């Protein structure tokens, strides 16, 4: 892959944070903390890694992306809108009755979503099955799967982690598969360390036979370099443990379990957007702020 244009990707991620907050505010529910922690990873994937054509979302040669931590789908919806799968303004229909933007990813509601996730612990198994299926079909696409840290407390993840390095299709191992853990250290009830500490996490993935990398999940250059390494890995799948901050980008959300699953009120969203987009508000952010301000109850 070409060297990443970090400023360009960072600008997309910044816009992503604003749109995530916009979406959640309109919806009145959803998961800001984990959407904000994962957006840099998803931006790098959608805009400097995944091969896809928004006009042909079911094309056989597309790379596959499974958001196993499905509750953070607002981040994915932004990336899909920005990429052209659907108009950006459809983002405000998140979670509304009849919207293709379901609260958790729905494969049949929205072309471009590869699997229904949201019931944590299942996405990696599907991703491994896809990687195997692609090997059996003799096709080149790669498979990427993003998991949450709380999510990997689910046993099914480890069933699949155990088998993936042993599976092969047509004699080809599943080195076409990359798992990324969004390690933001917080789950719903509290800090991961307090609920069920995952450490030593890298050791676990290594012990299960995965090539294992650890990065700063907000450093786009590091994310991209790790993906390069993963793509070059031969013989086994790769797990990238991305250290992130839950609620990244919003001072009053960062590292706070309260913001796992609570949507901001319009005034809170406006405050957050001003932090992210800067003061004075750039042209692309001003309309969003105006729109959310209008939502505020008098």
């Amino acid at each position, binding site marked *: 892959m070409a060297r990443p244009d970090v400023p360009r990707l960072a600008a997309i991620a910044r816009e992503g944070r604003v749109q995530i907050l916009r979406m959640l505010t309109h919806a009145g529910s959803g998961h800001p903390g984990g959407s904000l922690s994962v957006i840099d990873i998803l931006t790098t994937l959608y805009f400097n890694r995944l091969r896809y054509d928004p006009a042909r979302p079911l094309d*056989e040669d597309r790379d*596959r992306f499974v958001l196993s931590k499905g509750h953070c789908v607002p981040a994915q919806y932004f990336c899909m809108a920005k990429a052209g799968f659907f108009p950006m303004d459809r983002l405000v229909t998140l979670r509304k009755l009849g919207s293709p933007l379901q609260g958790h990813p*729905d*494969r*049949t509601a929205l072309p471009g979503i*590869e*699997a*229904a*996730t*949201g*019931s944590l*612990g*299942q996405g*990696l*198994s*599907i*991703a*491994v*099955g*896809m*990687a*195997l*299926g*692609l090997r*059996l*079909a003799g*096709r080149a696409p790669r498979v990427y799967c993003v998991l949450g840290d709380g999510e990997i407390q689910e*046993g*099914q993840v480890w*069933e*699949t982690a*155990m*088998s993936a390095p042993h*599976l092969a*299709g*047509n*004699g080809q191992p599943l080195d076409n598969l990359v798992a990324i853990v969004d390690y933001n250290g917080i789950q719903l009830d509290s800090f991961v360390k307090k609920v069920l500490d995952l450490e030593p996490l890298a050791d676990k993935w290594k012990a299960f036979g995965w090539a294992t990398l650890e990065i700063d999940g907000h450093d786009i250059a590091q994310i991209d370099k790790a993906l390069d390494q993963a793509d070059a890995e031969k013989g086994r799948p790769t797990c990238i443990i991305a250290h992130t901050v839950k609620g990244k980008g919003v001072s009053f959300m960062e590292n706070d379990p309260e913001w796992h699953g609570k949507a901001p009120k319009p005034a809170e969203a406006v405050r957050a957007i001003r932090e992210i987009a800067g003061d004075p508000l750039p042209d692309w952010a001003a309309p969003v702020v105006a729109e959310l301000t209008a939502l505020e109850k008098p």
Partner: protein
Amino acid sequence: MAAAKATRAAFGEALVDLGKRDERIVTVDADLSKSTMTVGFAKAYPGRAFNVGIAESGMIGLAAGLALTGRVPFACSFACFLVGRFETIRVSVAYTQAPVKLVGTHVGVAIGEDGYSQMGLEDIACLRALPNIPIVQPADEIEAKQAVAYAVEHPGPIYLRLTRQALEPVHDESYRFRLGVSPVLRPGRDVSILASGGTVASALQAARALEAQGVQAEVLNVSSIKPLDEEAILRTAGKTGRVVTVEDHHVHGGLGGAVAELLAEALPTPMKRIGVTTFGESGDPKGLYAKHGLDGDGVARAVTAFLDR
């Protein structure tokens, strides 16, 4: 007449045959390939049979991924272990609409000595609650092989419920399995007995015994539990006015539950549901069937008591 054969064995044979012509077909097992009888397929096509070890949730998810990338995967285990991972079936298969062919073997108390923990007794009840998973329980070898062939073509997920034990032939070579169609095996006018899988033979035996008492029982093979052949069931209920269901499954939520739901809304008819009412247990299969009222004698007794009500 052909020999008795377990529907799991018929399934294994059918896969080898179908697998020759359709390279999309693959199998996934959780260390029960020798029991689900996919071993034949694995031997014939070693690159297309996968064993994830004793990890049924992962197995089901893997099958979903395979289905979404162009394979026709048969995900196999004992019915209780497979459907026990209901959440993965619910989201990764059903809601995702991944066309996984789910195969649950070792159904009912008929598995015998292994006892309750290995018996599929609640699988129909669980899967009926999902909107898009047909449930097929073939009654013999001929029907089983056709059901497997149908499953390959079915444009979505599907569940096949198969026995450990050998089943006597019920159909002949002219039979054609169709989803949603339940043939009348034996016409009658006094009572309708709806059976499925291992209990079809019991229903036919009971019908013969009842005939000696002057009771003409009509017997249907309800191999398509979901979707039910509503037309056939309403027709037989309307004809006899008395419906008995018999299944090697818990008495709640299975075949009996499905039929009761239909009749209660469309044609309220006195019903008797015969099935397992407690946990299963270890024992010889014949003894277990007798104890739980699932053999010919038990069904005949229950029908007589029901008619005397």
